[in-house]
C-alpha cells in the first residue's frame, strides 16, 4: 500500500471536477464543504445512481472534509443511494396524502408487476423500488418519482403506461 499525498485533480475526471467546482464557487471560500450535497449528487449520477464508500471518501478529500462528515450527509438524505439501484429508480410516496389516496394499491401493483419490493432491484437491473416520504406533490396524490420526473394521480393502468414508455 502506498501512502499518497492527495492531488485533488486526480480524484475525479476533469468534467466532474469542473461540475463540483461550480458548486464550490457558490459558497464563500472557507465554506467549501457546503458543496457536499451537490458534489455527492454529481458523483452519484456519474456512478449509475449510487455511492460507494470510496466515492464518498474522494468527495471528502476534494472538499477537505473528514470522511465521516460526508457519510453523515449521504446517510441522512433519502436522495443518496448507498447500494446499487436499477436503471430506473421508482420512488413511491406512502405518506399521508398519498396513503389516503390509495398509494398502497400502487405499491402492490408495482410489486406484482416487477417482482420486487421496496429496497430491491429487478434481476435485469432495470428497476428498483424505494419507499419515500412526502415529496411535496400532495395535490396529485398518489404519486411517484422515477429518475428526476414526478408522475401524479396514479392508477395501476397509468403506472403500466408509464413503465412501458421507459427505455
Amino acid at each position, binding site marked *: 500500500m*502506498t*501512502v499518497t*499525498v492527495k492531488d485533488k485533480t486526480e480524484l475525479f475526471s476533469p468534467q466532474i471536477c469542473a461540475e463540483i467546482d461550480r458548486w464550490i464557487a457558490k459558497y464563500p471560500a472557507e465554506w467549501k464543504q457546503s458543496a457536499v450535497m451537490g458534489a455527492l449528487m454529481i458523483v452519484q449520477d456519474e456512478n449509475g445512481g449510487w455511492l460507494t*464508500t470510496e466515492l464518498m471518501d474522494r468527495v471528502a478529500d476534494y472538499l477537505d472534509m*473528514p470522511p*465521516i*462528515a460526508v*457519510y453523515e450527509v449521504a*446517510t*441522512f438524505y433519502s436522495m443518496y443511494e448507498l447500494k446499487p439501484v436499477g436503471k430506473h429508480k421508482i420512488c413511491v410516496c406512502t405518506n399521508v396524502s398519498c396513503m389516503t389516496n390509495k398509494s398502497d394499491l400502487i405499491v402492490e401493483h408495482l410489486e406484482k408487476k416487477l417482482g420486487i419490493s421496496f429496497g430491491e432491484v429487478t434481476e435485469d437491473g432495470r428497476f428498483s423500488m424505494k419507499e419515500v416520504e412526502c415529496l411535496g406533490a400532495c395535490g396529485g396524490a398518489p404519486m411517484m418519482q422515477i429518475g428526476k420526473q414526478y408522475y401524479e394521480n396514479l392508477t395501476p393502468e397509468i403506472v403500466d403506461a408509464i413503465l412501458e414508455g421507459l427505455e
Partner: protein
Amino acid sequence: MTDKLVTIEVNGQELQAEAGIMLIEATDAAGINIPRFCYHKKLSVSANCRMCLVEVEKVPKPLPACATPVSDGMKVYTRSPKALAAQKGTMEFLLINHPLDCPICDQGGECELQDVAIGYGRDVSRYSEGKRVVADKNIGPLIATDMTRCIHCTRCVRFGEEIAGIREMGATGRGEHMVIGTYIEKSVDSELSGNIIDLCPVGALTSKPFRFNARAWELTQVEAIAPHDSLGSNLNLHLRDNKVMRVHPKDNESINETWISDRDRFSYEGLYSSDRLTSPMVKKGGEWKEVSWEMALEMAAASLKEIGDGDQIGTLLAPTSTLEELFLAQKLMRGLGCNNIDSRLRQGDFRMDATQNSVHWLGSSLSDMDQMQTVFVVGGNIRKEQPILAHRLRKAAVNGAKLHYLNPIQIDLNHRGDQDVCTPGEMAGRLAAVAKAAGVKASGGGASLLGAAKVDESAKQTAANLKAADGALVMLGAMAQAHPDYALLHTLAAALAEATGAQLSILPTSANSVGAQLAGAVPHLQAGGTAAERAGLDTLRMLKMPRKGYLLLGVEPGRDFWNGSLSMSALQSADMVVAISAFRSPELEACADIMLPMAIFTETSGTYVNAEGRWQQSRGVVRPQGESRPGWKILRVLGNLTDQPGFDYIDSQQIHDELHKLCESSTLDNKQAEPQNLEPLLSADVLLRGGDTPLYACDPLVRRATALQQTQDAGSDTIRLHPQEAARLGLDGSDTALVKQNGNQIDLPLQLDERIPQGCVWISTGLARTSTLGQPFGEVTVEKA
C-alpha cells in the same frame, strides 16, 4: 463575553453570574444540580439531549439550561412541577431505546444515565414496543462499543471535532435510524481517543482493556502523576486488590485540563507484563541465577568498587525515573569518582553541553501555550510525542495562531499550519534560511550555513510571523534533539528566537527530562542544575569509548538508545553491568551481569518535574511486585555498601527535600553561550536515514502495554520511502529491502510513502528490529533483499 455581572434567581436563591454565560454554568458554579447528558464544560453546546430543561419565569415552554444565556432578573426553577415534568418526560423518552442491560454493562455503577434515572425515571416502563438494536463495529483495541446503549448525546463526536482535531465518530442515518459510530469499520486513531470513554455518559463506549474486569464500587481511587511525557498529567488510579485496574484523568486546569493521552491511560497494562523482573539475579557462567537481595547488593557494590577508576564506569539513567532515583544514582556514582552520568539516551549531539550552565526547559508555562500567536516547531511531531501539549498548541492554532513546522517528514497535523519538509541533512540549512530572513548575521557556529542559506518565501513568512507575534516560540522537538547536528539546530534556533523576540523552547522529551538536569543526572550539570565542576562523558561518548563497567537504571539496552546497536556492543563488551530494572528483556539479559528488580510507577513514591518546571509528587500506592524494591531504596543501600556518607535516608521525602534545597537558586533558562567550532556532521548529499521514536515505543513500560501496541501509533518495523526514491534505488515492486547502517544490516518490509522526502528513508527507532540498527539520522544504504 463581557465581565459584567448579572443577577439571577434560581429556586429562590439569588446568584451573581457573568453576563452571557449559559444558565447551567451558573448553576454548576453555585452547586445547584441540573441533570444533563450532552452538556460538557469543555465541549460546544449541542442541546440535543433535552435533559436539562428548566422552567424560566415568563417563558411559556421549559428551556434547556445548557443553551439559555443568563440575563438580569431571570427567575429560574429547576425543580418546579413544570421543570420536573419536562425532565421526567425526557428521561422516559431516553429510556425508550436504552437496553437496560445494566447487569452486564461495564458502566453500571458509574453511569450518568443510571444516576439520573434514579432521580427522574419512572419505576415501571410504559413502553412495550420493540427497541432499536445497533450492530457494533470494531473501532480498535482501546475502546469497546455497545452502540445499542447510545443515547445520542454526541459528546464523542464533538470531542473528535473540537479537541482531538480529527473527526472520526459521527451520526449517520436519520431519526429512528440514526447511529453514532464510524460508519465504516475503522479504528479510532486519535492519540487522545480514550477520553471519549470518560465522556460517554452511558456504557456505549467503554475501555476495552478494562472490560469485565471490575465494578466501579470495588475500586479505590488514588492520585498519581503520569510517567511518560514531560507534561506530568494528573491521574486518578483505580485500584483493586493491590492492582491498578485502570487509569482516569484528574482535572488540573493548568496541565492536562480534563484530558489525558491514551499513553497515560493505557500504559498501566505494562505493569503486569509477564517479563517483570521479580527477584535479584546474577549471571554465573552465562546462566541467570536467583539470589538473595543481600548477596546481589553486596556483589553489585563490590563490583562497582572493584573497577577502581570511577572514570571507567558509565552511568545510564532512564529519563522516566523519579527525581529521587536520578538524584541518588548520580550521588552514588559521583561518590565513586564517576562523572559519566547521563539520562539523555535519545539525544544525537552533545556539543551544547560545554557551555550549558542552566536547566533547559519548555520556555513557557503550559497554560501560556494556548495564548501563543506564533510557534515554529523544528524537528518535532508534537502530536505523536506529547499529545496533551499538542492539544494546547492546537488550541492556539484554533485561536488564530500561526504554526510553522520544519521536519524531515511530512506529519499529520490536526490544525492549520505550514510545513516545510526536507531531508535530515537539509534541516540546519533550512533553519538558517529562516534565521537569515529574520536578520541573523552570519557569525559563530552557524556562519557557513547562514552565509549559504537561500531565503525563500516560506522562510520570510515564518520569520515575519515570529516577529509580528505577541507571544512566540521557537520549539526544538524530539527529532531535532535526536539530530546529529542538534547543536547547530539549537544555535540557529536560539539566534532566530533572539532576533525575532520569540522564546526558545527546548521541549523536554521525557517525564523527568527537566528533573534529570536539576538532579545532576547529566554529565555537565550537578545537582541543583549548575555547571558541574568536572564534566563527565555523555551518553554517546560513554558508548563510543566503552567503559569497563556500567550502571543502568530503568534502561533497556537497544531499544532505549539513540544508537541501538552501539549500546548493545558497548554494554556487552563491558566487564560488569549492574542493571536496576523493572523488566527483563533478552537484550538486558545479554548485557547485564547483575539485575536488581525495581518497583516502578504506582509502586514507588517519587517526584516528577515537568516541562514547565513544576514539581509533582506521586505516592507508592500498590505493593511492588515480587521482591522488587523502590529504586531509591536500592540506591541508598548501594550507597551504604560502598561506604559513602549521606545515604541514611528514611523515606523518599528526605531525598526530595535535600534536592529541593539544592535547587532553590536554580533557574530554568534556555540561554547559553554558543559552543565553538560548530560544523555540520550530517552530510546533505548521501542517502540518509530518518527516524522518529513512535508514540508507544518510548519507554519500557509503554512498550509492554499490550493494547497500545496494537494501535497504529505503535509504529512498525518497516522501511518507508518515497515511491520515486524506491524507483531510484531499484526497489519498485519489492516487498522487502535490505538496509545497512554502521555495519549492521537487516531486511525489513518496504512501504511506499509520499510523506517521506526524497533522499531519505524512514526507519523508526525503539522498535524490536529497528533498534538493532544505528542512529535515527545517519547514512544508510538500502538494496534489494
